[in-house]
């Protein structure tokens, strides 16, 4: 969840592009994982292949389409990316059929584990671990590396970054590719945990948007915090109102935005 939100937050915050197709990248990632696992039996290969492929797809889409709508306001972007979600879901359906698929967790991560008296599936813990590691890497990279600095310059002030001699178009393409790759990674990670089906994109997209907005746009820390809160909210929500756990999450977001109109760690837009 966090991976997805981080990718979305970067694309959204840095480039100010509201990308509804982000959920589609996630779905495609899961289907790539399915195909790779079926063909080679190797989950680990999928873990490498899918993000790379999606980064390429993301870069291509940015170059051909998104580039043209940066100045056009969010609504044009919503329409454009909504168009892509329709295209992706139909392509997936024609390629794989509408049936639900699933892949088993990689060997070594099946079964359940007892932690502090509670039972978790081993794979869930693995997901948690991966998210933590990637989150930490992103955070470190974001704060220290040049990549982070360039991105941050872009987030803070597009004009300023231009003045500093940063090749903005290229940065944008790379950022978009990176965000798409993260979504792909999230898709692969999620594949053994959840079911794979056309339509999984829409379900996850809204949640990802909530995470991003809750944390504040363009802030990796915010995405982390948002993901943690949404996760927690979901668990509490499930025990309080099992039928409508997501309602609690929406309520949480509403409460946060009413008090802090730019999200927890966001800048004023």
């Amino acid at each position, binding site marked *: 969840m966090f991976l997805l939100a981080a990718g979305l937050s970067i694309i959204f915050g840095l480039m100010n592009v509201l990308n509804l197709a982000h959920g589609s990248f996630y779905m495609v990632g899961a289907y790539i994982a399915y195909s790779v696992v079926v063909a080679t039996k190797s989950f680990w290969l999928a873990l490498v292949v899918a993000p790379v492929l999606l980064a390429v797809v993301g870069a291509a889409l940015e170059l051909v389409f998104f580039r043209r709508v940066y100045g056009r306001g969010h*609504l044009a972007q*919503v*329409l454009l990316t*909504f*168009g892509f979600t329709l*295209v992706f879901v139909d392509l997936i359906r024609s390629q794989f059929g509408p049936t639900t698929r699933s892949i088993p967790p990689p060997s070594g991560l099946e079964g359940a584990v007892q932690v502090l008296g509670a039972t978790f599936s081993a794979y869930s813990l693995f997901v948690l671990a991966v998210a933590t590691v990637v989150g930490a890497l992103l955070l470190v990279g974001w704060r220290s590396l040049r990549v982070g600095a360039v991105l941050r310059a872009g987030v803070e002030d597009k004009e300023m970054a231009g003045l500093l001699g940063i090749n903005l178009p290229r940065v944008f393409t790379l950022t978009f590719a990176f965000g798409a790759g993260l979504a792909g990674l999230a898709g692969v990670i999620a594949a053994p945990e959840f079911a794979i089906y056309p339509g999984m994109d829409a379900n996850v997209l809204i949640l990802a948007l909530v995470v991003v907005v809750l944390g504040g746009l363009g802030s990796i820390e915010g995405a982390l915090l948002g993901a943690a809160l949404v996760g927690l909210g979901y668990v509490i929500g499930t025990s309080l109102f099992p039928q*409508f756990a997501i309602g609690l999450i929406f309520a949480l977001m*509403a409460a946060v935005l009413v008090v802090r109109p730019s999200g927890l760690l966001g800048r004023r837009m």
Partner: protein
Amino acid sequence: MIRGRFRAAWRPGLLAILTLALASVPMWAPRFWIYIATQALIFAIFAMSLDFLLGYAGLPSFGHAAFYGVGAYACALLALRQVDGLIPLLVVGAAAGALIAAPIGALSLRTTGIYFLMLTLAFGQMLWGLAVNWTSLTRGTDGLIGIPRPTLAGLDALNISLYERGPFFFLCLVVAILTFLLLEMLARSPFGKTLEGIRDNERRMRALGYPSFRYRLAAFVIAGSIAGIAGSLAAMSNGYATPDLLYWTVSGLALVAVVVGGARSLIGPVLGAFAVLFGQLGLSTYVPRWELILGTLFIAFVLFVPRGLVGLVRRA
């Protein structure tokens, strides 16, 4: 860049053509297409209310379906309790829409831009969840079905029944025209210009002494009540009210209609509503892989018709 101060010359012409074309629909169209045109008209009313928010007040609501759905449920609940007057049913829809819009607007309007969009989405989805789970009132996912069509004293005397498709279409047309005139009047009034000022530059408006929040809230409530009226009509037309009506995809479709048609024009959303509804329906019933085609159309539209359908007309 020189533009007319209030309205350009293309507008009355397009309006007249549109009205005439619509009014003639029941004379030549097959029954099924009258039904679809009715749906499109209702959707157009809904889209116009959204355009008022989006185009004039600059508020991208992504939860507008909440007011549409609440209007439908209010109308349905009343109609199922043997109230069959047209006017009370429309009024209750409008009142319900306004009543819900007031608190949601009061909270959402503390934010702007994309945060506003997400917040309205959140409230919309919460109401949707309520409609699904409050089964004693809404009957959950099954929805309220079997809603009768309303009656209107004068029409009964003339022996015209709103159960007939033609008269009901005209009813929707009349409501749509009234809605258009009302919103057009608001848009051109000092109130409308104030909203536009706030949309363009809230800071300056506040510096000039305008309490921007109150104006925005008023616009939000007005749009909510019109969406409620559209919801009432939908409930009467279909004979049911289901949680689907409140789902975010409905809000999304309305936004698409506004953007496709061209925002800040009030005519654009009408054209957009027809285009989207006919597009979706035409494609889904006659072509396999229709989602692919619809998606491609959207993409092409954004890239090649940036100003919406109204922009095309304006150029022509």
